C-alpha cells in the first residue's frame, strides 16, 4: 500500500512539472522520427520473435505526458518480407485493425481487440494503372481477381491466395504488353499492382451502361428562400454545368416543392422552361411522360435559363409547408427507368403529406447526463423509399440547411441505404453565416464535379478461414458478401468486421480483396480491385505489435454508433471504455513479462485511451453537454461514412501553434515552402495567451488568437493593428504581402489541399461565440460533465487492476 501511494505522488508531481518529464522518459523519442508503430524494413525482414521491436516498447501512460508524435500518426506497416510489402495496398485505401492476423478465433478473443477492415475503395488516386484486357484472369472457384499475392507454381499455373485452388494461366496472359515479353506472367501489371482498374469486357455489361442522370430536388418554401441557398446553388450549378461528369448522353432534371410539387418541362424547342404544378400530393403522378429529364447538351440553354430564373421565381413565396415525401416519390418515379443521382435540398421539417415528421427533440434533454432518446428513425417511410431507390439504381444525396430540428435520424435513412451522402449546414443563412455560405459553395463545387460511378456493386473476399460478419457505411447489403451501391463516390469510406471461422494454422499470410464493379460517367463498365496481404501470427505479443490504433478507433466508432441506435447511448459509451480496459488488461496479463505499477501499454497502443476519451467527448457520444439532436445524429452519420483519415481528424483534431511558423523543417512543394509546425496535445495547458493556435477538425478550422498575442502576428497575418480590432466573424485570411502571411496561408492551404472537401476557417478571439466549440475539443481537460485525460487513465487503471 505504501508503494502505491508513493507511486501516486510521483505521478501527481509528473502531472504538474512538465519540465522534469523528459528526464523520466525511459526511452527518449527523437523529434520528427518515424512513428513508433512502424517497424523498420530491416526488422521486418527478421523473424517476429526478435527482441522488443519499437511497437512493443512498454509505455507507462501515467508517467509519459507527450505521447503524440510531432507529425500526424502514420499507419503501421505490416510485418511482411520486403518484396511483398513494397507492392502491398496503400493504407489510405485499405487498412486492417490488426496488421498481424491471429491464427485462431480464441487467440483473437484473448487479445480483446476488434478485427476489421477499413476501406476507401473509390478514392481519387494520382496513379491508377488501368488495364484493358479481353480476358480478366480470375480464380475458377472463388472468382478472385489475379493479384500480386498469388503464387505461380510454374509458368502455366497459378494458385489462388484466397481459396488455394490451382488455376491455369490463359494463353493471352502469357504475353506482357508493357514489356513486350512472353512467358513472364508474373510481370504483368495485374500481378505487380495491388490497386488496379480493369475495363470490363462485354460479359460484365448486362444492360447498356446507364448514362449520367442528375436530378435536383429543391425546397422552395418561404423558409428556404429566406436562407438564400437557392442563389448559391443556381450560381454554382451554372458555373460548373460543363464540368458535370458525363458524356453526350448526360441528362438533368429539376423538381421544386413546397406544399405542391413543381416540374419543369425543358423540351428542346421551347422558348423558355415551362413549370408544371401538381397539387395532388397524396397520389403523385408525372405530368408529362418525357422532357422532364432532358439531355444536357441539347437543352443546355433552357437549363441555364431556368437556373437564372429560379431564385426570383419564388422570391415572394409565403408557403410554409414542405411536402418532402411526395417530392421524393415523384423524383423516384422520374428516375426509376434509368437510375442516377438525386440531390435533395431541404431547409425545414417536412410537415405535409406522406413522410411528414414531428418535432421529437426536447430542448431540455439536450444536456441530459443519461440516455439520449430519438436516435432511431421515427418512420420507416424513408427507409422503404431508399430500398426502392436502391433497386432502381438511384442514389439520394441529402443537403440539410436548416436552423430548426429536422429529424435527421429519419431523413438520413434516405441516403444511408441508397449509398448517398448527407451534407449538413446548421443555421445556414446567406447573411448571418458567411462561413457556412463559403463552405456550401465549395462543397457544391466538389459535389458536382467529382468522379462518380453508377450502378455499382462491391464484393469483399477474404482468405478461406476468415469471414465478414458486419458491414458499416452507406449501402444496401444484399448478400453476406455483396454490397449494392447505386452510386459510388470518392468521399465514401466503408468498414467491415471479421471473424476467424477456421484456424489459419498452415498459412503464413492471408489476403483480402475488395472488387468494385461500376459504370463510369462515360458509360464504361470498370472494375477497381484492391488487394491487401497481411501476415498470420500465433503469439499475443505479435498481435499487439501489429495493432493499428487509428483503425481500431474508427471501427469502434462505427460499432458504437450501431449500438447507440439499437441499444442505448450509455451502452455504447460503456462498450467503448471496456474496449480500452479489455485490451490493456489482456496486454498486462498475457504479454508483459515484468509487472510494473502504473498503466502500462505497448507503444503502438499508447494513444488508444486518448482516442477513446476523444470518442466519449465527441459530439456523437457525449452526455452532459448540450448537444442538438440533429448535430449529434449528423456526427454519427459522419463517423460511419467518412474514410478513416478524416474521421480521425474529426475525433482527435490537430492543434498547431501558428504565430511562430518558421521555415525550419518545411516542405517544398511546387516551389512553395510549407512550414510544418508540431502537432500539440489538446489541452489548454498547451495554449498560451501570447500565441495564436490553429485547430484542424476536418471540416472546420479554428484560429484562436491569444489575448496578448504578439502584435507582429496581428499586423502581418491578420492585417489588424491590435487584438481589439480583430473582427467578429472573420473567416478569411487576408492576402498580405508579408512573409508571415505567406507562411500561414501556405500552411492552411496545404492542409486544405489534402482533403477533397473544403474546411471553413473561423478566426476567434476569447470572447467569440465559437470559443465554446474550440474549447470543447480540448479533450485532455476536465469539464463539468467529463473526466480529464489523467483522470480517465486513473479510472482505466483502477478497472484493470480489479
Amino acid at each position, binding site marked *: 500500500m505504501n508503494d502505491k501511494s508513493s507511486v501516486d505522488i510521483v505521478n501527481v508531481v509528473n502531472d504538474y512539472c512538465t519540465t522534469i518529464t523528459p528526464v523520466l522518459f525511459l526511452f527518449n523519442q527523437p523529434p520528427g522520427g518515424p512513428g513508433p508503430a512502424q517497424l523498420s524494413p530491416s526488422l521486418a525482414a527478421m523473424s517476429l520473435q526478435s527482441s522488443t521491436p519499437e511497437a512493443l516498447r512498454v509505455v507507462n501512460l501515467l508517467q509519459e505526458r507527450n505521447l503524440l508524435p510531432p507529425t500526424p500518426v502514420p499507419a503501421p506497416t505490416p510485418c511482411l518480407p520486403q518484396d511483398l510489402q513494397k507492392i502491398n495496398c496503400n493504407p489510405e485505401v485499405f487498412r486492417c485493425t490488426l496488421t498481424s492476423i491471429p491464427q485462431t478465433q480464441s487467440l483473437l478473443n484473448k487479445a480483446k481487440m476488434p478485427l476489421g477492415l477499413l476501406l476507401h475503395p473509390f478514392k481519387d488516386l494520382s496513379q491508377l494503372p488501368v488495364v484493358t484486357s479481353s480476358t480478366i484472369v480470375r480464380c475458377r472457384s472463388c472468382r478472385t481477381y489475379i493479384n500480386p499475392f498469388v503464387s505461380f507454381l510454374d509458368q502455366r499455373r497459378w494458385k489462388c491466395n484466397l481459396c488455394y485452388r490451382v488455376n491455369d494461366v490463359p494463353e493471352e496472359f502469357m504475353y506482357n504488353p508493357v514489356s513486350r515479353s512472353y512467358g513472364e506472367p508474373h510481370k504483368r501489371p495485374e500481378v505487380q499492382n495491388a490497386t488496379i482498374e480493369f475495363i470490363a469486357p462485354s460479359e460484365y455489361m448486362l444492360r447498356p451502361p446507364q448514362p449520367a442522370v442528375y436530378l435536383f430536388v429543391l425546397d422552395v418554401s418561404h423558409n428556404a428562400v429566406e436562407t438564400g441557398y437557392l442563389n448559391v446553388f443556381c450560381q454554382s450549378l451554372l458555373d460548373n454545368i460543363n464540368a458535370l461528369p458525363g458524356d453526350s448522353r448526360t441528362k438533368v432534371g429539376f423538381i421544386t416543392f413546397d406544399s405542391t410539387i413543381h416540374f419543369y418541362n425543358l423540351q428542346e424547342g421551347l422558348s423558355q422552361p415551362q413549370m408544371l404544378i401538381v397539387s395532388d400530393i397524396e397520389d403523385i403522378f408525372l405530368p408529362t411522360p418525357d422532357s422532364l429529364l432532358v439531355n444536357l447538351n441539347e437543352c443546355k440553354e433552357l437549363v441555364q435559363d431556368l437556373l437564372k430564373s429560379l431564385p426570383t421565381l419564388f422570391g415572394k413565396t409565403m408557403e410554409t409547408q414542405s411536402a418532402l415525401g411526395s417530392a421524393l416519390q415523384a423524383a423516384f418515379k422520374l428516375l426509376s427507368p434509368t437510375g442516377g443521382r438525386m440531390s435533395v435540398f431541404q431547409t425545414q421539417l417536412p410537415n405535409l403529406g406522406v413522410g411528414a415528421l414531428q418535432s421529437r427533440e426536447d430542448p431540455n434533454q439536450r444536456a441530459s447526463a443519461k440516455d439520449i432518446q430519438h436516435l432511431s428513425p421515427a*418512420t420507416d417511410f424513408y*427507409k422503404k423509399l431508399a430500398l*426502392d431507390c436502391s433497386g432502381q439504381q438511384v442514389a439520394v444525396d441529402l443537403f440539410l440547411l436548416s436552423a430548426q430540428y429536422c429529424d435527421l435520424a429519419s431523413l438520413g435513412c434516405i441516403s444511408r441505404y441508397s449509398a448517398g451522402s448527407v451534407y449538413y449546414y446548421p443555421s445556414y443563412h446567406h447573411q448571418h453565416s458567411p462561413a457556412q455560405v463559403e463552405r456550401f459553395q465549395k462543397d457544391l463545387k466538389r459535389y458536382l464535379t467529382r468522379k462518380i460511378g453508377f450502378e455499382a456493386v462491391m464484393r469483399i473476399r477474404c482468405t478461406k478461414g476468415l469471414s465478414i460478419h458486419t458491414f458499416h457505411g452507406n449501402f*444496401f447489403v444484399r448478400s453476406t458478401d*455483396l454490397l*449494392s451501391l447505386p452510386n459510388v463516390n470518392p468521399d465514401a469510406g466503408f468498414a467491415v468486421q471479421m471473424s476467424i471461422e477456421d484456424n489459419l494454422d498452415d498459412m503464413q499470410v492471408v489476403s483480402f480483396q475488395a472488387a468494385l464493379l461500376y459504370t463510369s460517367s462515360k458509360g464504361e463498365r470498370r472494375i477497381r480491385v484492391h488487394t491487401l496481404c497481411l501476415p498470420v501470427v500465433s503469439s499475443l505479443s505479435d498481435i499487439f505489435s501489429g495493432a493499428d490504433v487509428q483503425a481500431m478507433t474508427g471501427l469502434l466508432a462505427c460499432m458504437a454508433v450501431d449500438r447507440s441506435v439499437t441499444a442505448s447511448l450509455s451502452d455504447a459509451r460503456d462498450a467503448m471504455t471496456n474496449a480500452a480496459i479489455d485490451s490493456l488488461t489482456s496486454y498486462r496479463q498475457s504479454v508483459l513479462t515484468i509487472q510494473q505499477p502504473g498503466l502500462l501499454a505497448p507503444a503502438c497502443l499508447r494513444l488508444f485511451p486518448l482516442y477513446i476519451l476523444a470518442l466519449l467527448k465527441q459530439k456523437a457520444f457525449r452526455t452532459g453537454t448540450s448537444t442538438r439532436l440533429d448535430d449529434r445524429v449528423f456526427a454519427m452519420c459522419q463517423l460511419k461514412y467518412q474514410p478513416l483519415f478524416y474521421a480521425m481528424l474529426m475525433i482527435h483534431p490537430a492543434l498547431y501553434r501558428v504565430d511562430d511558423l518558421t521555415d525550419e523543417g518545411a516542405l517544398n512543394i511546387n516551389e512553395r515552402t510549407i512550414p510544418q509546425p508540431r502537432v500539440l496535445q489538446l489541452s489548454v495547458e498547451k495554449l498560451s495567451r501570447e500565441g495564436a493556435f490553429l485547430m484542424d477538425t476536418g471540416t472546420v478550422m479554428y484560429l484562436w488568437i491569444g489575448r496578448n498575442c504578439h502584435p507582429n502576428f496581428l499586423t502581418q497575418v491578420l492585417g489588424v493593428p491590435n487584438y481589439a480590432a480583430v473582427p467578429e466573424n472573420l473567416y478569411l485570411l487576408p492576402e498580405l504581402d508579408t512573409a508571415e502571411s505567406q507562411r500561414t496561408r501556405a500552411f492552411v492551404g496545404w492542409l486544405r489541399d489534402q482533403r477533397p472537401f473544403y474546411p471553413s476557417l473561423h478566426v476567434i478571439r476569447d470572447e467569440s461565440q465559437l470559443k465554446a466549440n474550440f474549447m470543447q475539443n480540448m479533450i485532455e481537460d476536465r469539464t463539468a460533465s467529463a473526466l480529464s485525460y489523467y483522470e480517465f487513465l486513473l479510472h482505466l487503471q483502477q478497472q484493470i487492476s480489479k
Partner: protein
Amino acid sequence: MWRVLPSAVSTCYTGKSSHMSIIFQIIAFDELRTDFKNPIDQSNPTRARERILNIERICNLLRRLVVPEYSIHGLFCLMFMCAGEWVTLGLNIPLLFYHLWRFFHRPADGSEVMYDPVSVMNADILNYCQKESWCKLGFYLLSFFYYLYSMVYALVSF
C-alpha cells in the same frame, strides 16, 4: 378427463403450428442467403430490384409469424398455469422470457418488429436468427414428445 385437455391441445399445437412456423423460418433463412446463383446476375443492375423485393417479401412473412407464435405460446403457458401443470410450465418459462425480451428489444421505427431488410443480410444477424430457429425447432420437438407422452400417460391412467 380435463387433465388430458392441456396435454392434448398442446400436443396438437406443437405438433403442427409451431413446427410449421419454425420450419418455414429455417427455409426462409436459407432462401434469404441465396442471391442469384450466377455472379453475372448478381452484378446485373436490372436484377437488383428483384433481389430487394425478394428480401423484403421474406422479411415481411417472417415478421408476420412472430407475434402469432409468441402470443400462442403465451396462451399455452397461461393454460398450463391454470391447469396446475407446474412442471410443464417451468419448462416453458425460459422460452416465455426469451420471447418477451426479443419483443421489447426490437428496433423502434414504426412497424418493424424485427427482421429489418436493410440489416438482415449481415452475416452475424443472419447466423443468430438461424441458430435461434434451429434451437427452437429442437425445443418444440422435444416438448411435443413430452406432451404426447404425458397425454398417453393421462389417458392410460384414466
